[in-house]
C-alpha cells in the first residue's frame, strides 16, 4: 500500500517554482483532488517529461516545425509558402489540416507487406524518441530540471538515440518495396557513418565535463562557458552528425524524394504515413535538445521576472528551436550528396574531427 501522503509530500518538495502563479496555486493546492493534480503537474520530473520540454512541447513542435520550415524555405525561394488557410496568421494551422487529412485518409497496406510490422513500427518508434527525454536537463547550473538523475544519463540517451535507425530499417523491411529496400540500405550505411563520430563526440564532452550525469553536464557550463565555446570542434561534428542522423539536406540520402521516393516510407499512406513523416522531426527535436544540453548550456539564461524556474525551460526550448530552424534552413541552401560522398565524409572528415575533439577535450580538461 502506497502512502499517498508520502507521495504528495515528495512531490511538494520538488516543485517547479513559478512566482507569478503562486498566489493562484496556493488555494488550489489546498483542495483535495485538484491539489493532487496540480502537485503532480508541477512536480519537476513530471513537468519536464510531460510538459516542457517533454512530450507536449514535442507535440506542438511537430505541428509548428514543418510550417516554420515551409515558410522559411519559401522566403528563401522568393515565395510565401502556405498561407491561404488562415491568411491573418500566415497559415500557421497548415499542418493541422495536413495531419487531419492524413488521419481521415485510407490506410493502404499492400499485399506483399508484412502487415503487423508495417503498422507497428511507426508507433513503436515513439519509444526510442521519448525515452531519451527522461534524462534531459532543461535547467541551469545549480538549478536542474531533470526527470531522472542518473550517473549514466548521457550514455543512456546516446544508446536510445542509436536505437532509432533500427525502427526505420524495420519500416523499410516491412514495406517490401524496391525503393524502400534501397532507402533502407542507404539508411543502414549512413547509420554507421555518422554513429561512430557521434558517439566519440559525446565521449569527448564527457571527458571535458568529467561527468556523464546530465546535471553535472549543465553545471559544468556555468556562465558563458558553454560547451560550444569550450570545444567548438565537437559542436561542429555533433551538428553534422545530427544533420546526417535526421536525414536532412545535404544528407537527405535515405529518403531522397527524386531518387528513391521517400525510401523506407514509400508504401505508407494515411495516418501511417503521417506518423512516419513526423519520425524525422521527432528525431530532430530530441537531438536538438541533446545539443542544447551538451553545447548550449542547457536552460541557462537570464531569469524572466515572475517565471522563476519556468524561464529555464523556456530558454531551453528556445535554444532547441534555434537549432531546429538552422537545420531546417539547410533545405533551402544545399543539394544532396551522393551516398558514397556522404560515407566518405562520415568515415573521413567527421571521424578525424571527432578524434581531434577528444584530444582537445583532454587538453582542455587538463588545463582547466
Amino acid at each position, binding site marked *: 500500500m502506497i502512502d499517498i501522503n508520502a507521495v504528495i509530500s515528495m512531490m511538494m518538495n520538488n516543485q517547479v517554482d513559478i512566482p507569478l502563479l503562486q498566489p493562484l496555486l496556493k488555494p488550489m493546492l489546498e483542495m483535495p483532488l485538484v491539489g493532487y493534480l496540480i502537485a503532480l503537474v508541477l512536480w519537476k520530473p513530471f513537468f519536464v517529461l510531460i510538459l516542457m520540454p517533454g512530450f507536449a512541447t514535442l507535440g506542438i513542435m511537430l505541428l509548428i516545425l514543418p510550417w516554420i520550415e515551409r515558410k522559411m524555405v519559401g522566403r528563401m525561394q*522568393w515565395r510565401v509558402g*502556405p498561407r491561404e488557410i488562415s491568411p491573418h496568421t500566415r497559415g500557421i494551422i497548415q499542418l493541422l489540416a495536413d495531419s487531419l487529412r492524413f488521419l481521415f485518409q485510407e490506410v*493502404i497496406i499492400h499485399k506483399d507487406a508484412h502487415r503487423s510490422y508495417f503498422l507497428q513500427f511507426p508507433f513503436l518508434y515513439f519509444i526510442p524518441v521519448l525515452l531519451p527525454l527522461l534524462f534531459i536537463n532543461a535547467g541551469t547550473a545549480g538549478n536542474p530540471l531533470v526527470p531522472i538523475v542518473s550517473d549514466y544519463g548521457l550514455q543512456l540517451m546516446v544508446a536510445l538515440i542509436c536505437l532509432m535507425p533500427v525502427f526505420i530499417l524495420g519500416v523499410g523491411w516491412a514495406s517490401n518495396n524496391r*525503393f524502400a529496400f534501397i532507402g533502407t540500405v542507404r539508411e543502414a550505411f549512413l547509420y554507421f557513418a555518422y554513429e561512430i563520430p557521434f558517439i566519440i563526440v559525446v565521449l569527448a564532452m564527457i571527458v571535458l565535463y568529467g561527468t556523464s550525469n546530465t546535471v553535472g553536464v549543465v553545471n559544468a557550463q556555468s556562465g558563458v562557458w558553454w560547451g560550444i565555446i569550450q570545444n567548438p570542434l565537437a559542436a561542429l561534428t555533433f551538428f553534422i552528425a545530427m544533420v546526417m542522423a535526421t536525414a536532412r539536406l545535404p544528407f537527405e540520402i535515405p529518403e531522397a524524394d*527524386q531518387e528513391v521516393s521517400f525510401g523506407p516510407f514509400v508504401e505508407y499512406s494515411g495516418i501511417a*504515413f503521417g506518423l512516419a513523416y513526423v519520425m524525422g522531426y521527432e528525431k530532430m527535436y530530441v537531438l536538438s535538445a541533446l545539443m542544447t544540453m551538451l553545447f548550449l548550456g542547457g536552460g541557462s539564461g537570464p531569469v524572466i521576472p515572475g517565471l522563476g524556474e519556468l524561464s529555464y525551460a523556456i530558454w531551453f526550448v528556445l535554444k532547441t528551436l534555434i537549432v531546429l530552424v538552422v537545420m531546417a534552413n539547410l533545405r533551402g541552401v544545399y*543539394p544532396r*550528396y*551522393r551516398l558514397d560522398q556522404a560515407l566518405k565524409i562520415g568515415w573521413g572528415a567527421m571521424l578525424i574531427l571527432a578524434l581531434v575533439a577528444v584530444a582537445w577535450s583532454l587538453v582542455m580538461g587538463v588545463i582547466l
Partner: protein
Amino acid sequence: MEEYKNANMRIINSGPLAPFRKWASKWSLWPCHFITSCCGVELAHAFAAGYDGERLGTLNMGISRQSNYIIIEGTITRKMARALQFVWGQMPDPKFVNVIGACGERGGIFWNSYNITHPSDIVPVDFFIPGCPITPEALLRGVRATQDKIVGIDRKTIEFKRVELPFEKQLEERMVPTSPKLFAPTPLIKVDVKREVDWGKELEDNLKNKLEGLYESITITGKSSIAIKTTQENLKEVAQKLREQMKLDHVKSVNVIEVPHERKFIVEYIISSYTEEELMPVLVTVFVEIGLKDPKIESLTSIWESANYSEREMHEFFGVLFDGNKGMGKKFILAPDTPDLPLRKEFKIPEERYVFEKDMPLDELMVPIEPPKDLYIPISEEFIEEAYDNDEIVVPIGPHHAGSGHLRVTFRIKGDIIVEAIPEPGFVHRSMEKLAENRLYIQNVPLFERLAINDPVNMNLGYVRTLENALGIEVPERAQYLRTIMAELSRIEAFYYDSGIFSLFFGHTTGFMYSMAIREMVIEVLMGMTGSRSGPSFLVPGGIRRDISDDVLKLTDNLTFAIHKRMKKFEDIFVYNPVTIARAKGVGVLTKADAIRCGIVGPFLRASGVNYDIRKIAPYEAYDKLDWEVTTGDDGDCLGRFLGRLAEIKESVRIIKQAVDAVRSIKGPILSADILGEYKEAASDIKGNFFRVFGNLVLPKGEWTTITEAGRGTLLFSIISDGESNVPYRVRVISPCWMNLRGFMEALKGARYADFWAVYGSFGYFPPEADR
C-alpha cells in the same frame, strides 16, 4: 466513373466528423508528381516562385500513396494511360482529379492522333481546365474550384450553349482554304530532285571517285545537300566508305518514305560530319529503294551507332526490318494496343475538316477509347531472373516517379553501380509525323511548336525555315533580327527550365524556384512580343505575324540586365554550391569519340569538345551579323555540360542586346513580299489575311531538309512534298532530345544509381520533345 466520383464525395461527407474531413481535405490537396505531358512546364510555374501554389496548401508530393490529388497535364497517350490507371489505383481514398490542357479533354490539337486516349475514359475527372498550354492562373483556379467542390460550393463553370452568330452568313462567304488532303492519288515521290545551285561540284566528283561502282546516282539537291542513291546490297559498303574515307561520322536522321502505288519504300539516312570542318554544314542523303513486301535492309548501327534508336523507331512505324539492329521486333515507342505500323499510308486517321457539314456524324470525332486492361512493362521474367542470379537488383523508374519525367528507364544495379540502363521512351508520343500529313503546311506550325513548349520559338523557327527554304523566300531584315531575338529568348527559357529540373533532381528546390523565377521574366517579355506564354506560333513563313513595338524592345533590353542580376544569385546558390560541384563533376563523362559516335547534338556535344554550332557553320537569320562566340569545353561530364550551357546563355544575352540595338534602326516590312503576293497590305500585320496568304501553300516537289540550332541542339525537319497537294507527303522530325537519348544512356554506363539524375538533368532531356 460517375459513381466513383460521387463515392469520393460521399466519403468526405459521411459521419459526424464530416466538417473536419471537408476542411482538412480542402486545405491539404497534395498533387502527386505525375507529369504526363508538356503542360507540366506550366505546372512547374504554378508551383514555383511567382505563382506559388503552395499558398493554397497544395504541396507537390512525389508518391501516389501519400497524395490525394492528380493534376493530369494534357495528353494521355496509350502508354501513359496504363501508368495513369495504376497511379490512380494506388492513391488512397478520397482522391480528386483535375485535367489541364485542351488535349486532356478531347485531344485538342492532337484530336485525331492514333496514340492518345481521353483521361475521362480512364479516371473520373472533377474539373477540366482548358488551354493549350494552360496558364498557371488557370491551373490554380482549377485547384480553387476543387477546394470549393469539396466543401460543397458549386462554382459555376462554363456552360456550352448553341448561339446564332449574326455574321454567320458572312463567314460562309469568306474564302476558306480547301480541306487538307493529298490531291494526286499516285504522286511521284522523289527525294533526289536535281537543283541548279552554285555549290558542290567538287564534293560530287570526290564522292563519285570514292564510291566508284557502288552508287546508282549522285545528285545535288540544293545548297549543302547531296543525295546518293545506291542499292540494298551496296548500302553497307557505301556507308563504310563514307564513314572511313569521307569522315561522315554521324547520322542525323533515318527516314522511311512509303510509296504504296509504286510498291516501294525509300529508306534514307541523312549523314553529316562533326570532324571535318568543311563537311559540317553538308547533309548527305544516302537512300535505297526496297520492295513493299517483307521490307528488309541491313542495319547501319555497326557503322553509325547514332542510327540505332531511329532505326528502331522506323521499324515500329513502317515495319521495315533493319537486319542487325538488336531492337528489332520489340516495342520501343508505341504501346501494345497502338495500331500496328501507324505511319503507313493505308492506316487512315480521321480527317481534318474546316467547316462542319450539317449532317456530319459527330460520333466519328468522339470515338471512345477503351481503357487499358493490363500493366505493360516490357521486362521479361528471364531478365529479372538473370539479374538476380548475378546478384543484381532490377529497378524500373518512371513514368510516375518524382525524378523521372515521362520516361521509363529500367536499371540493373549491382551494389550502387548501374550495370545496364534500358530506356523506354514514347510516353508522350503524340504522333506528330502522322498528324502533319493530314494538315495544311501552315497548320503544322502550332503542331510542331508543341514539341517543346519550353523552347517554342526555336521549334517554330525550325519548321518555318524548312518551308522558306523550299519556297525560296528571303525574310526581310527586320524580321530576321526579331526572330533572332525571340529564338535566343527561347533558348534562355529552355536552359532555365532544364536547370530548374537539374537542381530539383539534386533535391535543391531553391535552385528550381530561382530558375523558374528567371524564366518567368523571359516569358513575360515573350508575352509582350507575341501575346502568348509558351505557345506563341508567332513565326510564319516569310517573317513574323506582327511588328513588335519599341516599348517591347525596351523591355527586352531591360530584361538582359535583370537576367544578369538574377543569374548571379542563381549561380551563387546552386551552380557554385560545393555540393552541386561534388555531385556533377566527373560524373557521366562522354568523351569526344563517344559523343560523336552516339550522335550527340547541341551544347552537350560542344561540352565534349566538338566545335559544332549550326548558328556559326551555316548561319541563318541574323546570327552572322552579330558578334558572339561558340562555347566549347573538354570535360564532357555533367558539370561541363551544365556550365557550357550557362556560358552559352551569357552569349545569348549578348546576342539579344546587340540585336535589340540593331533592330531599332532597321525599319521595314516584317513579312516577305514573295509570300504575300497580292495582299501587300499585310506587310506589317498578317491579321485578317492569314488564311488567304498561307492557306494554300504548296511546296515544290522533292525533299527539303533544314537543320536549326534549337535550345538543346540540332533540330532537323525533313519535308517530302509531291508538288501538288496542300499537305506534306511525309514529315520527318528529329528533335535534339531524341538524338541525345542514345548518348544519355551511354553516359550512364558505370555510373552510380544516384548519378542517373545528375546525367538526366545535365542533358536537359525533355521527353515530349524526344517522343514527338
